[in-house]
């Protein structure tokens, strides 16, 4: 089944004001930067964005925050972003902070047909407020619900025309679970190849989870914290 769309414009057709989007990535690593650029161009508003982080002021989801397109962020960590802080403190932006492992599992559950699950993470903290508590093996756990999205937008290293995806290094992070949890999943890849080119043994995300795939025009792949050793 051919999932290929011509370009980023075609990939994001159907995204409307008020929708819920999942955006893959950890920090600026493995984010769908071409699609984020297109979302800014489209000017879609009142979006709920599910993403581990919120980018920095001038890159990633930070660009959508600058354009005031985001109504609500569902994330685990949102530092390094002044505009985010300003909008959050002024009440323009709703923020739902979720433990990182619970966020990952809630996306996975959403794609896997599991409506909710119990986890020990957050028990006894404000994250547990209003949530059902049950004790398993003598340890209290809280009930967390699955997350899904109208569109999940992920970034992969290589993909084929069937939508099969391979990620590189730590750029995998949230992308595979979010790909599973989108009603429509869009994959932007660095390299798009014909079906049969990628080794089926090496596929990380099977094409069934991907509805649209395209090769991104340009990847800046910005580094947030450049740390190095001195050459010996």
């Amino acid at each position: 089944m051919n999932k290929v769309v011509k370009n980023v414009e075609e990939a994001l057709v159907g995204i409307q004001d008020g929708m819920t989007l999942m955006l893959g990535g950890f920090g600026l690593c493995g984010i769908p930067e071409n699609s984020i650029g297109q979302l800014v161009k489209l000017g879609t508003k009142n979006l709920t964005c599910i993403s581990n982080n919120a980018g920095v002021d001038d890159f990633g989801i930070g660009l959508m925050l600058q354009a005031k397109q985001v109504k609500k962020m569902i994330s685990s960590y949102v530092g390094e972003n002044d505009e985010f802080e300003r909008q959050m403190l002024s009440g323009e932006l709703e923020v739902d902070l979720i433990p990182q492992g619970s966020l990952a599992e809630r996306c996975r559950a959403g794609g896997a047909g599991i409506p909710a699950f119990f986890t020990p993470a957050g028990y006894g903290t404000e994250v547990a407020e209003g949530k059902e508590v049950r004790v398993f093996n003598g340890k209290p756990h809280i009930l967390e619900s699955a997350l899904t999205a109208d569109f999940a937008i992920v970034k992969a290293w290589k993909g084929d025309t069937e939508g099969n995806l391979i990620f590189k290094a730590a750029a995998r992070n949230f992308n595979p679970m979010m790909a599973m949890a989108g009603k429509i999943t869009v994959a932007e890849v660095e390299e798009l190849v014909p079906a049969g080119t990628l080794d089926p043994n090496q596929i990380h995300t099977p094409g069934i989870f991907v509805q649209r795939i395209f090769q991104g025009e340009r990847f800046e792949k910005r580094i947030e914290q450049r740390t190095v050793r001195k050459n010996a």
Partner: protein
Amino acid sequence: MALDKNGIAQRIAQELKNGWYVNLGIGIPTLVANYIPHGIEVEFQSENGILGMGPFPFEGEEDADLINAGKQTITTVPGASFFDSATSFAMIRGQHVQLTVLGAMEVSQNGDIANWKIPGKMVKGMGGAMDLVASAENIIVAMMHSNKAGESKILKECTLPLTGVGCVKKVVTELAVLEIKDGKFHLIERAPGVSVEEIISKTEGDLVVPDVVPEMHFD
């Protein structure tokens, strides 16, 4: 003399056991990797999806796709693996990671930890800290004994919003190694030249002090 941050990290490194998988938090915990004792082999887990994390890359060899949980460019060691965030936290929640070392703003005598939020200040989020402390069998907190205002961070009860309850087993500060047992802090070791009196005066929580408190030993 009180330890510096590297000294705290070096003392914590003495707790490492051969064959352990270890998750190090941001700050002092990261420094533990610099002091792995001779003959001990451990593998570092980074919760964004790496087992077998190595040192920072040489200049010019940075890879934007290869970062740690602090978003710093890093390398991998031979035998490393990459995985998604759900698998990463399965390792953590499923207790496959033997030791977690993290920083804290406050620790209480029943093992509660607060390290993610100060009311009235910008909330950045808990990241993976709540998942890590909820499940790890062995959690060591690396921190200074007092905050910048000189107030003890070793408390009867935490005053800040909690990250986890009853989870911390050991605290290493610039002054002492403390164990948490039966709802009390127990003084295990003191930093070289630091008096028991100083530790008592800077500890707000209940502290059990044995007759003899050995000094930390560094090779």
